[in-house]
């Protein structure tokens, strides 16, 4: 009984906060409410025992996206010089679009034909063959590896999209992120003490992802957060976007993924299939490379396009 009351209250709260985010007058308020919405949504995922999704929602959906949206709101507000308010018609369009998506999904859930077919039992029975303990990692890397590969490539394309916002002759310069102005601020202390802890945590999160909730996306986000903190505090210089080491880190994940995918042609004879007995080490290698790439890409997404200083 108490659980149902809690779930119902949570569901109502999520819907209310979602509506509030769309109706908020200022863009920055809307973004902050959206971040709260993401955190509440991750509570919902915890309630339905999807810890992996909850972690990803909190890290990517709320944290990383929220940071990008705040940066975008600040930038557009400053560049247009106007008050960063949203006009009434935009509210109406946003509400209409969001509710039509929600209604569409809800109607799909109601017209599902008969008994839903679940493959969960089959997956759990053959999970030990991959050597993994976390069924989510198993599905992502064994049954749905092509989707997982494309997900990472989407990130790459998003980064290229951000880079192309800069002008042509600035290509490959230093990103336009402005470090915090005060040199002796307490932020520097945080940027010096937190990264070792964060780094350890990111490695831990990626490593345990094979057996319990966690994995490359969550670890990579923590990595990115630490790097953004270091860049913001001005503890380390932001690297040039044309730096070969940086470019290598960006493509490391997809390259290792594709290499192992093509290796599948040699041994079991199929793209993205793993040789008998080598599934777990190969998947862990992919996760490590992906964590590095995701961390660097998310960090660079928040650093923005080149500002023209020190361009190629």
């Amino acid at each position, binding site marked *: 009984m108490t659980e149902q009351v809690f779930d119902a209250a949570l569901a109502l709260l999520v819907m209310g906060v979602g509506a509030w985010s769309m109706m908020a007058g200022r863009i920055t308020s809307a973004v902050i409410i959206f971040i709260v919405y993401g955190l509440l949504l991750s509570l919902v995922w915890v309630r339905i025992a999807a810890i992996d999704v909850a972690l990803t929602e909190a890290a990517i959906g709320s944290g990383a996206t929220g940071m990008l949206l705040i940066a975008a709101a600040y930038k557009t507000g400053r560049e247009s010089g106007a008050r960063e308010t949203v006009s009434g018609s935009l509210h109406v369009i946003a509400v209409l679009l969001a509710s039509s998506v929600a209604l569409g999904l809800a109607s799909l859930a109601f017209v599902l034909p008969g008994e839903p077919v679940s493959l969960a039992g089959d997956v759990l029975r053959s999970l030990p063959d991959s050597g993994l303990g976390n069924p989510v990692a198993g599905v992502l890397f064994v049954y749905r590896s092509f989707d997982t590969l494309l997900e990472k490539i989407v990130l790459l394309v998003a980064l290229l999209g951000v880079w192309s916002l800069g002008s042509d002759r600035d290509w490959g310069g230093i990103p336009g992120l402005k470090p915090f102005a005060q040199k002796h601020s*307490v932020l520097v*202390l*945080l940027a010096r*003490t937190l990264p070792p802890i964060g780094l350890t945590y990111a490695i831990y999160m990626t490593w345990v992802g094979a057996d319990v909730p966690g994995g490359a996306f969550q670890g990579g986000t923590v990595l990115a957060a630490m790097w953004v903190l270091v860049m913001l505090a001005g503890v380390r210089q932001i690297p040039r976007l044309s730096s070969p080491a940086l470019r290598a880190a960006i493509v490391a994940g997809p390259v290792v993924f594709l290499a192992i995918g093509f290796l599948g042609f040699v041994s079991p004879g199929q793209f993205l299939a793993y040789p008998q007995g080598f599934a777990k080490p190969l998947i862990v290698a992919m996760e490590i490379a992906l964590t590095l790439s995701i961390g660097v890409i998310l960090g660079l997404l928040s650093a923005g396009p080149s500002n023209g200083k020190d361009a190629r």
Partner: protein
Amino acid sequence: MLDLFSVACVLGGAILFMAGTIGLLRFPDQLTRLHALTKVDNLGLGLIVLGLLPQFGWLTGVKLFCTWLLVQLSGAIVTQLIGGAIRTREPRR
């Protein structure tokens, strides 16, 4: 006995969270609102962690304690930054 201790501590933490939230909503200016928030971070979360400690093994206990320490660190520093920002923006009254 230990369960009673847990319930008392978590309840105390929850009451502090409630008080902090009321403070955040009702206090007149930004600095006092920050003041309300820090109490929740330090003591409220501390009490909840303390209450949960006897319910788990030592490894989870260490993790919980580390979580509290990290929240302390980031909470203290973020509060400093926000406070500094308020001071530079507003002329002294």
